[in-house]
């Protein structure tokens, strides 16, 4: 009796304290967000006096990277440089890289806890959508206008990828606007058998690769004619034949009728899947292709062992002429043998691509204006960009004929700072090239960008809001996971398995997704007069 009473009392106290505490916490978050808003005002008021002295401010940069031993040295060098070159901005940076593997957990906690940080790397494959939905990012339109002249100079026309609800939430890195996919083969073997790669590049038909695979299979025992990249069929197919809206729904490129379909229902998909399967049956593709896709034991590392001939559906390197077979300098170096790329397809300008690599400003920033000033510097100051990307000259890299190389006797593992993710921030074209790369790499990029920009996708600017079909998408994703590896590697017979797959997708609600896509697409067309 007594203990029961005690229990009641305890539970009541617990409950009430829980309520009090939760009340507290929601209060603190509220005050937290309001306090993060008020500095915005002070920021814009101080911003009027840019030329006069701003209060010192530390811009915290969050981005994914593996651990760098000399991070602090680089940070100090950046700060010294900022101090001496841009004293009027009165700012320092704090580099806060987050490990790739910890990225999701850590950034979510940082956002949610109201921890102070300013710029953050984000992308549609790193949760950009949900960050915008949660209100974790600041809209950048006004800031861009005021503090981003150098960003606007190169990226003005390319904000659509990161625009949501009419507001810009991310700044696209100025880089290549698309990619190019095709086939990669080993140079030595291609020369040995006098393969006509130029003809293949001209016809751009996967089928025309088959005789070469056959020759290798018959004459080179121990060499796998074709090894799988993660999803070779998909990579090539999605870029070349479809305008993807969200996997697996898109528009077939050849019919410009704005009709959304699931790609598993298209003839193009079936043809490629059948071809892949027939190659697999004839032994042209490695037997473990479906599992090596999952373990990241991908085609490139298989190439490295020296017993593979070709990879289909790979991303090409951007070279001066992207329509003919060409050497692949960077990959060749990685793999340790000469490779030749045979381009099949050049991307058109796609909205999705423009949200692949962006920098955003966090709502936890105490001075978004200063954050934007820093971002702008990365679009104009090559010196700052090199510090961030390559580290300190002489310590972490040396210049050889204007190209970046590792210092004598150092490897990427022991040099102390090997960030090498130039695609993450700023104007990538301002960077040095690496030894081994085409010194004209960025000229090639500019030229390539002209080609891409001249060929915008018919749905350029359209962004799908996946919120209404969120649950269906999860179910669909689960179905696809069980089939994709098998189909993409050619292990499964598409004539048997694809019907099973599509019926399961139906049960998962694919029709609803297609209808939703169609609906939003029609609305977008009406609004944009397409």
């Amino acid at each position, binding site marked *: 009796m007594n203990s029961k009473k005690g229990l009641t009392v305890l539970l009541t106290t617990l409950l009430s304290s829980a309520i009090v505490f939760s009340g507290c916490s929601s209060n603190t978050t509220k005050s937290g967000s309001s306090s993060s808003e008020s500095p915005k005002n002070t920021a814009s008021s101080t911003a009027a006096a840019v030329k006069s002295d701003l209060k010192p401010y530390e811009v915290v940069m969050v981005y994914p990277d593996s651990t760098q*031993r000399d991070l602090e040295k680089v940070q100090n060098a950046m700060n010294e440089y900022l101090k001496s070159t841009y004293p009027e901005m009165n700012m320092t940076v704090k580099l806060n890289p987050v490990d*790739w593997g910890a990225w999701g957990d850590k950034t979510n906690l940082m956002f949610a806890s109201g921890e102070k940080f300013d710029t953050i790397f984000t992308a549609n*494959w*790193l949760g950009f959508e949900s960050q915008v939905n949660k209100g974790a990012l600041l809209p950048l339109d006004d800031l861009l206008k005021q503090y981003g002249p150098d960003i606007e100079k190169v990226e003005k026309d390319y904000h659509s990828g990161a625009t949501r609800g009419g507001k810009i939430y991310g700044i696209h890195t100025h880089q290549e606007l698309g990619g190019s996919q095709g086939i990669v083969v080993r140079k030595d073997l291609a020369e040995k058998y006098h393969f006509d790669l130029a003809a293949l590049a001209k016809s751009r038909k996967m089928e025309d690769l088959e005789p070469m695979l056959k020759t290798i299979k018959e004459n080179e025992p121990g060499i796998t004619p074709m090894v799988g990249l993660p999803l070779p069929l998909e990579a090539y197919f999605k870029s070349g034949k479809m305008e993807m809206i969200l996997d697996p729904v898109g528009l077939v490129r050849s019919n410009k009728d704005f009709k959304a379909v699931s790609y598993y229902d298209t003839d193009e998909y079936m043809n490629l899947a059948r071809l892949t399967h027939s190659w697999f049956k004839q032994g042209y593709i490695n037997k473990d292709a479906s599992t090596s896709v999952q373990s990241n034991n991908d085609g490139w590392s298989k190439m*490295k062992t020296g017993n593979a001939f070709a990879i289909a559906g790979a991303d090409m390197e951007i070279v001066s002429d992207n329509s003919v077979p060409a050497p692949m300098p960077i990959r060749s170096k990685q793999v340790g043998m000469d490779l030749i790329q045979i381009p099949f397809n050049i991307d058109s300008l796609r909205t999705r691509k423009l949200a692949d690599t962006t920098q955003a400003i966090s709502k936890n920033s105490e001075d978004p204006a200063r954050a934007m000033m820093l971002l702008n510097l990365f679009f104009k100051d090559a010196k700052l960009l090199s510090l961030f990307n390559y580290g300190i000259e002489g310590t972490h890299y040396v210049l050889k004929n204007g190209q970046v190389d590792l210092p004598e006797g150092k490897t990427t593992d022991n040099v102390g700072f090997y960030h090498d993710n130039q695609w993450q921030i700023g104007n990538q074209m301002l960077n040095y090239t690496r030894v081994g790369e085409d010194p004209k790499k960025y000229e090639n990029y500019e030229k390539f960008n002209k080609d891409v920009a001249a060929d915008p996708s018919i749905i350029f600017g359209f962004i799908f809001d996946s919120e209404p079909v969120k649950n269906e998408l999860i179910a669909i994703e689960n179905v696809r996971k069980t089939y994709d590896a098998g189909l993409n590697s050619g292990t499964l017979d598409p004539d048997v398995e694809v019907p099973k797959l599509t019926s399961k997708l139906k049960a998962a609600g694919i029709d609803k997704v297609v209808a939703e896509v169609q609906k939003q697409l029609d609305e977008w067309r009406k609004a944009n007069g397409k």
Partner: protein
Amino acid sequence: MTQRANPLIHVLLLLTSLVCLIPFWLVLVVSLTEEKTLLRYGYSFWPKKFDLTAYLYLIQDATPIVRAYGVSIVVTVVGVIISLAITSMLAYSISRSDFPLKGIFTFYVFLTLLFSGGLLPWYLVYTRFLHVQDTLWALIIPGLLSGFNVLIMRTFFANSIPPSLIESSQIDGASELRIYFSMILPLSLPVMATIGLFVTISYWNEWFTSLVFINNQDLYTMQYLLNKTLLNIQFLAQVTSVAGGQITTRPPLESIRMAMAMIAICPMALVFPFLQKYFVKGLTIGAVKG
């Protein structure tokens, strides 16, 4: 009966130990196999081409590993000592039937087994209230007290220490602290060893606190270092197809990952046999009523 155990049990135990040992063996073999052979033929139970590169590589660039080892050891040792102290004090208090708030405290401990505050409040307490991020305390404090351990200890104290013993000490004039340190602790070695081992293992295996709280690479623990490399590979494998091959970060070689795993296992594999004799005793006494 006791002399000749059932052969079926032997077979079962043998199978169970095999199931435990085989993966261990595989990891060892992979760590000793040449990388190219691995890429070509995959894993095997006998090294096709024996090779020590992975270990040599780790020795050559040993600073991060040695540091992580040091952090792990410090965290584990300090953590276990503090954890045992507060666990036993709490458990002892609520095991005394003459402690008036016994019920409330027991229930409070029990409640933590059923409900937790969730990730975000947990994170907020440590970063905003205690400000321990990027210090060793961030690795130690979260693992200090586990309700489960407290309850095991409480049962041990309640059942194996006769109240009359405490009473007689009190009559002899011993203070509560004196009783606790001179009577209770020496009598409860088995349970201390058992819980000590539990806590040791959980500290040694902990990586999530490092992931969440630690940015300074000098404070990475061994397990986090290992986990980080594995997580990174998994993550990169997931996103490379989406990011269009833009990520150039090379995943570390397979054999190096396995060699790291072997190195991380070592201390636990060494500690376990020495504590094992207490293990059975402490756990059974702590678990069985009567």
